[in-house]
């Protein structure tokens, strides 16, 4: 009897213990799930515009987050350009840590100083190390991708400390980083990811009106095609055939894929036939993603493939049937890397890009997919076409965003949206009555495009709020704000007029030459890039003439004074402030960094001839910006702050981008490394 009672008691105690243990575990799960951090990066969301919309009550979800925590302007980088700004965020530090100062840097060892992509480089397989096989060759090394961003990245420390981290398209992060640690890491590359040709993305536009045989414009190629019997054939040009030995006759033979377009004699419909795929499109329609294989044509390709040498390169494109009658016109997107079968890695792990595609379909993989260049550089496209392309892109991203929220179980999720930025670049003039480029015929037709994009972002933020738990942290941030780009300043022309730059021939002879007309033996300074300004320094630049030391510093002091004093015809300030890199970024790499950065006044930016690697010298100092690219942010950085909205209170009322990385680490109790100069914003409020 006693035994039975003892056994019964033991059983009850054991069962109670087990049930208590079980209940305490489930309690822990229910009440203390691991806190998550969601960071939404909205490129180009402007603090002023957001404040207006909040005041009008149009952004309920952002208002809700702000009411729980904080909404403040977020100090941006100098220069306030996306590659620089996002690098500040990633590294928790200023440009003299990550060494990215513009979209383009220049090579001081070349004459003239040639520009190159500041974020990354893609090098095809080396032909010097290859096994020759007749007219073919088997490269012994693959192509390489290099990131120029230096310094730490906040995710390295998260993963090292066991925090699962997923990053969607943070800019200035190509090639995909390898990260060591006990946390899971997945990352899809964003701005800086090249197309299959290794560049920012080149569209192709086929038209019977294009110049014969073709014409290069910035960002693409216009190709003439002959339409006979309602059919036309076109060719998509890929990268060089890396398995074919270059010959004297054709040193860079490119891979090609032909396609045919057939239209109905009367109806506005056409058929694209490419590599056994048939796509039927109504006039004005876009195709889905079409995978195409650039075949190298090497014999016995299965054997070569078995040696792990690719014998074809896969790209994906979308066709847009611009017009059927009277002119058959077809636009083809840049050759995007196929996420399912990537020719170059675009994600970590390599399968991550494909997994996203399997769940939500193929998608744009180039870094900046909105084709502003086709809109700006061809007459065939208009704003409605561009908005249509942006819609397709945003719909792709929204699908991925929803999937990412669904998959978000713990750790950190960063998701990037670039639509607000690109729409602001193109449609800012429609909200600026004083912009000289406004089209009277369009009136206010596009006046609400930017506002609508803000409202859509707010709706998407609302979806995130629905998916989050009470103890989760959400941060909505942007890298910079915006301002109207009404006028361009021809900085190199100013240098010529003020005797700092000399040309070999008359200024009119300088068009279409990349500094080819510059007399470097008599040139003290030059401008290249959106905000970058270089001194032709002896010992650093190939043909440098300005001596280091006193001559260098006094020249810079002189230039700062003169540039800040520049006024336009109406007496308005053109340059708000000139930043000397040796003063604001003392650890800058002199072979990479500019000597000075020009912070333009509101309404101004460097002119097109100065900003992009054209090296042209217009005769006038100032020009009205009549380009469709009408909003920008190449100003003094305090004029175009970004935004920070979070459901937590912050301890610093003047946060900057470089505080974000340390803040993310601080949330998980991780101390920032010494290279991170930013400070956690939540203080003890962990």
């Amino acid at each position, binding site marked *: 009897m006693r035994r039975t009672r003892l056994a019964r008691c033991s059983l009850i105690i054991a069962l109670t213990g087990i049930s208590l243990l079980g209940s305490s575990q489930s309690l822990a799960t229910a009440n203390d799930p691991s806190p998550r951090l969601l960071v939404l990066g909205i490129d180009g969301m402007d603090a002023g515009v957001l404040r207006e919309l909040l005041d009008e009550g149009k952004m309920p979800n952002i208002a809700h987050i702000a009411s729980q925590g904080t909404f403040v302007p977020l100090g941006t980088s100098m220069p306030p350009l996306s590659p620089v700004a996002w690098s500040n965020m990633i590294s928790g530090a200023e440009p003299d840590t990550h060494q990215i100062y513009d979209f383009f840097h220049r090579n001081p060892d070349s004459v003239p100083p040639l520009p190159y992509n500041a974020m990354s480089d893609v090098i095809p397989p080396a032909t010097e190390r290859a096994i020759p096989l007749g007219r073919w060759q088997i490269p012994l090394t693959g192509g390489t991708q290099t990131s120029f961003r230096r310094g730490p990245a906040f995710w390295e420390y998260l993963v090292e400390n066991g925090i699962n981290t997923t990053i969607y398209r943070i800019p200035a992060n190509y090639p995909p980083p390898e990260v060591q640690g006990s946390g899971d890491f997945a990352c899809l590359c964003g701005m800086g990811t090249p197309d299959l040709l290794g560049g920012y993305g080149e569209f192709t536009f086929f038209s019977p009106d294009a110049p014969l045989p073709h014409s290069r414009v910035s960002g693409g190629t216009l190709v003439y095609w002959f339409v006979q019997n309602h059919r036309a054939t076109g060719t998509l040009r890929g990268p060089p055939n890396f398995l074919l030995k270059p010959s004297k006759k054709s040193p860079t033979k490119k891979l090609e894929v032909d396609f045919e377009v*057939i239209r109905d*004699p009367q*109806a506005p419909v056409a058929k694209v036939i490419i590599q056994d795929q048939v796509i039927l499109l109504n006039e004005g329609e876009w195709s889905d993603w079409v995978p195409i294989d650039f075949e190298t044509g090497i014999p016995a390709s299965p054997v070569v493939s078995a040696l792990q040498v690719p014998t074809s390169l896969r790209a994906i494109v979308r066709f847009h049937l611009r017009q059927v009658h009277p002119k058959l016109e077809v636009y083809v997107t840049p050759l995007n890397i196929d996420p399912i079968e990537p020719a170059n890695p675009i994600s970590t792990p390599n399968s991550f890009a494909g997994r996203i595609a399997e769940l939500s379909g193929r998608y744009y993989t180039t870094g900046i997919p909105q084709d502003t260049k086709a809109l700006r550089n061809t007459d065939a496209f208009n704003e409605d076409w561009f908005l249509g392309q942006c819609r397709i892109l945003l719909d792709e991203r929204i699908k991925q965003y929803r999937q990412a929220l669904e998959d978000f179980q713990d750790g950190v999720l960063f998701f990037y949206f670039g639509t607000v930025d690109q729409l602001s670049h193109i449609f800012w003039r429609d909200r600026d009555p004083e912009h000289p480029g406004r089209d009277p015929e369009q009136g206010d037709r596009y006046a609400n495009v930017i506002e609508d994009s803000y409202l859509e972002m707010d709706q998407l933020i609302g979806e995130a709020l629905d998916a989050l738990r009470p103890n989760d942290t959400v941060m909505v941030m942007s890298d910079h704000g915006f301002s109207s780009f009404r006028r361009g300043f021809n900085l190199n022309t100013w240098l010529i007029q003020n005797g700092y730059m000399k040309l070999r021939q008359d200024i009119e002879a300088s068009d279409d030459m990349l500094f080819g007309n510059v007399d470097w033996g008599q040139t003290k300074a030059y401008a290249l890039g959106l905000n970058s300004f270089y001194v032709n320094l002896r010992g650093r630049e190939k043909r440098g003439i300005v001596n280091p030391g006193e001559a260098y510093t006094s020249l810079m002091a002189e230039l700062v004074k003169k540039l800040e004093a520049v006024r336009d015809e109406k007496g308005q300030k053109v340059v708000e402030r000139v930043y000397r890199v040796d003063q604001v970024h003392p650890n800058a790499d002199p072979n990479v960094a500019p000597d000075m950065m020009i912070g333009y006044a509101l309404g101004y930016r460097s002119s097109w001839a100065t900003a992009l690697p054209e090296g042209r010298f217009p005769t006038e100092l100032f020009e009205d910006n009549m380009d469709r690219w009408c909003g920008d942010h190449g100003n003094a950085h305090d004029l175009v702050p970004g935004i920070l909205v979070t459901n937590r209170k912050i301890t610093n009322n003047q946060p900057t981008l470089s505080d974000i990385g340390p803040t993310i680490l601080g949330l998980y109790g991780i101390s920032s490394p010494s290279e991170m100069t930013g400070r956690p914003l939540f203080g003890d409020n962990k």
Partner: protein
Amino acid sequence: MNALNSILTPIADILLAPFGRLPSQVALIFWSVVVGIAMAWVFKHTSNQQRLKEVASCIKAQLLAIKLFKDDLGVTFRCQRELMKATGFRLLHSMPPMLIMLIPIALILTHLAVRYEFRPIQPDESSVVELTLSSTHWEANKDLQLQVPPQVEIETPALRDHERHTVSWRIRPTAPSVTPLTWTIADQTVEKTLVVSDRPGLLHRVSPQRPGSNIFDRILYPTESGFTSDSPVQSISIQYPRNSSPIFGLDIPWWATFFIVSMLAAVATRPWLKVQF
């Protein structure tokens, strides 16, 4: 060929019917095993087994000799010559059964192809339908209309290609169904079956083409009767997406799975069937 197809198609349907609710790979593996065993049996009864056994013994002997006299180059070379000769004989004696099995295997493959090469269109997925007219009927019928059931939308007007005598449409089904697309030409109604499914992993009979009078097309697309040579319609095709039937996570083509599994099955049943390959 139409008559043969009309017999074989229902037989294939009946044989595959038990697998209708299972992943399509199950039927492929099952029938690969069955075909492999059947091939071994046919091989046994249509080949000279006695001679093949002698050849196999000879090969064994030569291999043993090479092993034993590996230091004697003369013997090694002579054995290798004999090995090559024996292999040739083995091939020669394998020819009659292979020729006998060629046609049945080809027919089996074509019936498997319409179930494994393509997958059905999924609801809300677009596809292109193309009808080819004969050149003599082109002018009179090029403005023909496609008639679709309510669950299928036509997304484009007809695209008439005067050079290839084809008329194309883009369609988008909105719900799963196996339904005919119809056209009326010269008082005749012609049809092409459209297969739409939201469960593409199951077994479906998906024929991308209703063929014309070409014999090879009729062999390749056996499930719908071919048009006669004097028919105004020469063929009708639907662009179905390529199928993927991964086995144990490996995305190998269905025909490779078929050959590998059937050969393994044939080799595995060799001791019971007492067959010499």
